[in-house]
């Protein structure tokens, strides 16, 4: 069957099999390896992508559900050579160590800031509470998102 979606701003058509998960289509058929599989049960958020602006865990998301929708992955976040403000804040706050959870955190942060550009610290914590990190202790990630919101606010 044919899955058609707007992937990172471009129309994409891809032949898939029934039962394919969105993460499999992204990684295996489209070569977008930035979306990570860590738990396979929608528990850790490493596979987070945005579908019509909403953060979803693509490891349990049937690929066909994305048909006709806008899908955004980590590969679509940076503008060419420029890092997105959220990515730059993650760099500046050392909010990535092993890095395996990082794309998922950045997508969750983007979903949050796209709808709530000036979140409180508690709202940031709630916004990433579905993402697991085993390395950082999370403080740097919360700091980075807080800082990104501030910088994006100044840029507006």
């Amino acid at each position, binding site marked *: 069957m044919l899955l058609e979606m707007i992937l990172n701003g471009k129309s994409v058509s891809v032949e898939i099999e029934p039962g394919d998960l969105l993460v499999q289509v992204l990684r295996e058929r489209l070569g977008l390896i930035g979306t990570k*599989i860590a738990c396979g049960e929608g528990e850790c958020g490493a596979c987070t992508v945005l579908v019509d602006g909403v953060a979803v865990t693509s490891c349990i998301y049937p690929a066909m559900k994305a048909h006709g929708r806008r899908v955004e992955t980590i590969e679509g976040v940076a503008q060419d050579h420029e890092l997105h403000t959220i990515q730059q804040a993650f760099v500046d706050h050392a909010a990535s160590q092993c890095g395996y959870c990082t794309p998922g955190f950045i997508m969750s942060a983007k979903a949050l800031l796209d709808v709530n550009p000036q979140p409180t610290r508690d709202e940031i914590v709630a916004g990433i509470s579905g993402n697991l990190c085993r390395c950082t202790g999370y403080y740097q990630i919360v700091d980075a998102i807080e800082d990104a919101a501030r910088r994006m606010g100044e840029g507006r």
Partner: protein
Amino acid sequence: MQLKAVGQGVQRVDIRQKVRGTRKYPQDFNMEGQLYAKVVWSAHPHAVVKRIDTSAAEAVPGVVRVITYRDVPVNEYGINVHDQPVLIAEGDKVRWVGDRIAIVVAETERIAAHARDLVQVEYELLPVVDDPRQAMKPGAPLVHEDRESNILKHIVIRRGDVEQAFAQADVIVEGYYTTHHVEHAYLQPDAALGFVDDEGRIAVISSCQWPADDLHQIAHMLDLPEDQLREIVPTVGGAFGGREDMYIQHLAALCAFVLRRPVKIVFDREEVTQRTGKRHPFYMRHRTGATRDGRIVAAQVELISDAGAYASTSIPVLGNAASFALGPYKIPHARVDAYTVYTNNAVTMAMRGFGATQPPFGYESQMDKLAEALGMDPVELRLQNLLDVGDIAVTGNVMTAETGAKETLRQAALAAGWREEDGHWIKPDLGTPSAPYKRRGIGVAIAYKNVGYSLGYDDKTTAKVELSLAESGEIARVLVKVAAVEVGQGVLTALAQIAADTLGVDVDKVRLALVDTTETPDAGSSSASRHVFISGNAVARAAAQAKEKWQAILRDETGEMHVEAEYTFHGRSVRPTTPFDPETGQCEPHISYSYAAQVALVEVDVETGQTEILKFWAAADAGKVINPIMYFGQQAGGVHMGVGYALTENYIQQEGRPRARRFSEYHIPTVMDMPHEFESIAVESAPDPNGPFGATGLGETPTLPTAPAITNAIHDATGVWIESLPANAERVWRALRAAHKL
């Protein structure tokens, strides 16, 4: 030497690619014509495999081969001892649920997964040994039938006259403390891609911690010389000790060896959780005696650790645990008996702390019990007894320059609000609990750990430094070749900083080569908090030699454009360590040390037993801080793992069968479980003159005191002692009910 990079918050060298999602982990690699493999795991924790029937699986279209024990040239491996079969043979035993029966290789992952369920295995069940305390008794069923007993190792330490000293103590406190199995829970599931490279070598792209040791084991398994093998280590998504043993790379290498085609294996989370090693549970029986004025006169402890089905590194883990069993204290009369015992539970192995993580729960609970019995402040009691430079440890060694225990505790306590008046320490006012059914408490703990491999092991790293010179003769680029695996801890950045300042170049001119056993020399394992100290010394010395050669080129105007230098640094060149004396345990155990002292301010809901951490202070002395940003990362990340150890994580097995499969059933702390406020304190009071720029190592120490700091705070809040980890809501609730006879 002018420091421009060392001590600065230099940006991680890998972070820009990590935030873009372009950094490739082993599962991100694919090759033309690759096959996919799935492992057939043992269905039982202890059984004889009577028959293996692969015919139904082989008949599935798309299945290329079912690999069994018959395909393994030398069917054994293991990090210290080759005591694990690669694939279980008919007539042999499975000893835990992580043993492997066969590997199904197919054209697609789905076919391989389908076909593995069709491999028929006939078992004859054997009695399961699931408690090391029972397993060590005479007559217990043997996990390894060729041994006389399940006791893998017994270590003793004897110092002074313990019986006489206890007789003279004014106060004696006792406790029986137990810790649990813990999963490393690195986010990146194990993955490997085996292939035959252009020069005919059996090669594997994999996540690991020690490529040279993997190669050593794979060479034995395939009966091939190491120069016909190769391991490439791209980005690794966390390790924490869990990738020090091989769980996947040898299987991928075996598949490539048998089939001469690329074969990819990726574990799912259930396999990572149930079929790979864990942190050792310990059972610790303590007795501590002190004088009325708070001087420890005697201490003894019996430690029993659960080694699981195979030895892995259980013996060196036990060695560490024995040496740290009684804490960083002056104890003139001491007795330690430490055992590690085979069972049919999960293999237990290295995990952040390597035997130094479990003992603090025992010795720091004892210190708070002692403080309460004496009516003394817990900080004051500890400061009175902590080791200082020149003091003698229970293993008889003299504590050296990097002994930062007292200052680390002092700074943690002061930050948390303790004050010192007339030589006495007074704990801070904790404020009012946020609800009538909540109680506040504050707890402190200190712990220490070795840096580098201990007890006579030759810990070493070889590093190569290559300089490319510009026309002007200046250093244009620096390439460092050293097989130090970046697992997230920041070793690539730290070594680049050390190389940059040694050479006097900007850090962005330094690049670390991709770890590939054909290119990068052995740097040992990413473990034991050792890379900054051991590999840092190797890089610094290789860089210093390269600099001398470069200066000679400039002086002699030879016009050469390339400089190379190589240096092998041995830990023993700065401090030779020795094994335990078999009768007394006296020895020089460790190359260097680091210290961590932590304070937890908690609120316990006495109706549910739930503990919330309001604020946490983490002080650590690891000598000179190489990179303050990454130092914070180790502190906060270490405390994260300590919070999980203390409150939320528990890998439960019943008769050798694990209960948890995935993160929904094994709870590592989320952002909401972390202390609401967190303060990291870099002490830097006790640099090690042997470390590069005075640094020791910080990778593990911040995890060690977290659990006892929290349980001591729970005691302060509620009056109950929690003697078994984790101190989850149920356990605290039960303890409260028992204490109040409800």
